[in-house]
């Protein structure tokens, strides 16, 4: 749904980093997206293909890594990763606590890009 706006941001940021770096073409962009995001990888790529026409990012592939959510246990302070499906049933592996805090899972990070 809001893939379009996110994709515009991705394009803006990569073009900004490509400027002045003698980049002929951006080949691949590595993204790290948190488990809580509902973005569809396929749609991000489709919007990106459309938006990037005529720029050095045209035909660039988006390599998206889905990062697990991280939960923190308020009782024993341990942190551990959980997948999206386990969010509602997660339990602290160290002390069994069920009232957990979500410490990460909604990041949208552009890690780096491969360029020619």
């Amino acid at each position, binding site marked *: 749904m809001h893939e379009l706006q996110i994709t515009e941001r991705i394009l803006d940021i990569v073009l900004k980093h490509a400027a002045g770096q003698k980049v002929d073409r951006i080949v691949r962009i590595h993204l790290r997206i948190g488990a*809580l995001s509902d973005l569809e990888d396929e749609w991000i790529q489709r919007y990106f293909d459309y938006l990037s026409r005529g720029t050095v990012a045209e035909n660039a592939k988006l390599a998206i890594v889905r990062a697990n959510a*991280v939960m923190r246990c308020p009782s024993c302070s341990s942190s551990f990763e959980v997948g999206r499906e386990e969010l509602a049933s997660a339990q602290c592996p160290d002390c069994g606590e*069920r009232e957990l805090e979500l410490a990460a899972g909604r990041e949208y990070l*552009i890690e780096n*890009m491969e360029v020619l």
Partner: protein
Amino acid sequence: MSDAVRLIEIKEEIHADNDRTAKALRAKLEEKKTFLLNLMSSPGSGKTSTILKTIETLRDRFRFAVLEADIDSTVDAEAVAAVGIPAVQLRTGGFCHLDAAMVTKGLEALDLDALDIVVVENVGNLVCPAEFDTGAVRNAMILSVPEGDDKPLKYPLMFTVSDVLLVNKIDYLPFSNFDLEAMRKRAMKLNPQMEIFEVSARTGQGFEQWASWLAREVSDFLNSAPGASRPAIGKFLSISRC
């Protein structure tokens, strides 16, 4: 010029711009002593009627205004203006959510010095609005009984960024198979600090409890020293956002 692929480090968070705008807006609201409540839900869950009922309950104590977001209509703003409350319509032109820049722009149409609470009625949708910090002091969401008790499983992000959940249309409970206890457990698992109120904007059930929670939050905010107010729950998630 070689043909070898080079790697350029970026390490940039896509939401960084919006987060900065949201932070600046919150600082301005603290200075102006205006409490901004961001209300999110599905279409048809009763956002506008909940806002109207909340205003009716608290208008003797606080000065209200409403920022209405809609993809392309003004019916909600007209309903609010009809009861004599300043209303600003933001037509999002196809956008499925509000971001901090849009809210900042909408607030320019209001005299913040003459207001205690501005309620933002976000675009009806449980997905996108949860992704964007609007700059609000508190985030509220509505889940109405006819939508079903499985929504925390389907839209976990929305439940993690909301400070308060209103279970609306509670008067429909006897006619549905909505399992209140199961929903409560699912929601609390995602967000143990979330306040939950069972309400009906139609009958007024539960509005006393919800309104007194809101009144306490607003009073604490209005009386707090700058920078002293507790951050909204959504902000606590952003620590790990690089």
